């Protein structure tokens, strides 16, 4: 074998192994992140974490109870607004859309999907915080809903379009009206995918911080009013991490671990639901 050929073979093996290294590095990042968070966070996650209000630095026994509850409030609000709107819009795009209007909606939804979440926060601020003269859970929920709507709409559309046309025709041929066909045949056939899309969307907004920075802001105490600033888990993580106190740093790790585990759990669950197969009901 000539030198050149031998060199080509060596180069081939080298480059291909390099790509393998790249892939291994990429995969290990996830485990690295998970490992670091668990290692640094698990010691600080105790009963207090889930039940106590935050305490001043130096005082032990503080927790993030209000942030957990606050996050739930804001995310539930966003879900109540965002999922139905997104779902209905997705149904329109998949089943009723006329050519131009549907194209416009689709294009705009994709556009909205690409807008940085902090810009969405600015929008929610200018519309709600300024008018109401207060930061509020409402504004935070609205911002998160705006992120959730286009995601839900496009994923609902995608899964409904993948239901074969012959299923619709079968229902129509039996005398079912179009909306009945959609409600009793198409949506049930696509329900796995639609549910997955929704779970993933909610998991995504649960972890968002930027839109909350100047909408729901933060709160050291309990708050159940929707029109007051409200604590949230991501925001707490942010402020604790940026503080100069070791104690608060530990809390940031702990809260980060809790948030990450929740988000990863939701993602894995959603993907497993989807991979069980689409549309085959028992």
């Amino acid at each position, binding site marked *: 074998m000539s030198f050149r050929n031998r060199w080509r073979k060596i180069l081939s093996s080298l480059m291909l192994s390099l790509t393998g290294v790249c892939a291994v590095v990429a995969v290990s990042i996830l485990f690295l992140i998970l490992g670091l968070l668990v290692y640094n966070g698990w010691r600080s996650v105790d009963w207090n974490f889930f039940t106590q209000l935050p305490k001043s630095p130096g005082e032990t026994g503080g927790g993030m109870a209000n942030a957990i509850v606050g996050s739930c409030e804001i995310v539930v609000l966003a879900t109540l607004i965002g999922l139905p709107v997104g779902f209905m819009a997705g149904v329109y795009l998949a089943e009723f859309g006329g050519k131009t209007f549907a194209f416009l909606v689709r294009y705009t939804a994709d556009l909205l999907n690409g807008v940085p979440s902090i810009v969405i926060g600015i929008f929610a601020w200018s519309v709600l915080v300024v008018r109401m003269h207060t930061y509020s859970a409402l504004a935070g929920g609205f911002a998160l809903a705006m992120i959730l709507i286009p995601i839900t709409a496009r994923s609902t559309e995608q899964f409904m379009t993948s239901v074969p046309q012959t299923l619709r025709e079968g229902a*129509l*041929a*039996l005398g079912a009206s179009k909306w009945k066909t959609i409600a009793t045949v198409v949506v049930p056939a696509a329900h796995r995918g639609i549910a997955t899309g929704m779970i993933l969307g909610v998991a995504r907004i649960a972890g968002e911080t930027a839109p909350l920075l100047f909408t729901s802001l933060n709160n050291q105490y309990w708050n159940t009013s929707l029109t007051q600033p409200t604590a949230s888990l991501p925001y707490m993580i942010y402020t604790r991490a940026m503080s100069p106190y070791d104690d608060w740093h530990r809390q940031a790790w702990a809260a980060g671990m809790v948030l990450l585990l929740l988000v990863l759990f939701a993602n894995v669950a959603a993907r497993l639901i989807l991979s069980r197969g689409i549309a085959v009901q028992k």
Partner: protein
Amino acid sequence: MSPKEPTTMSAPNVPSPGQAAGKPGGRQDKLKAVNLNFFYGAYKALHDISLEVPANKITALIGPSGCGKSTFLRTLNRISETIRNTRVEGQVLLDDEDVLKVDVTALRRRVGMVFQKSNPFPKSIFDNVAYGLKVNGFRGALKDAVEHSLKRAALFDEVKDKLQKSAYALSGGQQQRLCIARALAVDPEVLLLDEPCSALDPIATAKIEDLLFTLKDQCTIVIVTHNMQQAARVADRTGFFLLGKLIEYNTTEIIFKNPAKQETEDYITGRFG
């Protein structure tokens, strides 16, 4: 006429069994197309089709791929309207009423359809058959009606122990008979079948052909098939389509033994397919 089992149907919208069949002294033509033209956008797919489908008989439509026979069949229950940009000119008469001008869901209760590839819903066997009844507001005993339909489709014995299982657990031939049962549940006067056996093996095909014989007493059957032998086996009348035109339409015997048109003869003898 084979007697049908009595069912307790009380919903006003679904016709009772006896009245669905051809009545004594009733009209000969159940379904009639008059100068029917069909357009996909600007493309004319059907040219001036005029055809009478006799009641309580099996009418077959044959012809090479793309000749328009399926397109024609799909105008009869207006399922062709689900595709955008289509247009119909002419008339389709069901018992002398123009179906193109009436409520389409009511039409489809009376004119049922079975598709080329079986398309059971992702539901249980029971729910599949019951679907048409539920959607049309049936208020009687669902279980009896479902059982009756499955018996008419010669499927009941094979599935009676697993009515709650998913329809997808059945074989291809069974799924198609399930679709027939589903279509029969609303007691249609006309049953349209679009190449129902093309995806099935010979044994399953034979079962369905036998089924059609037993059904024709109770309803009018129109079947599209690319299998000439099947048409020769089951049909009373046969229509030959070519390039969107109805070339010849007559009793099956004449079409296959003594066709009037040269194109028909060429197709029958296999000069093109």
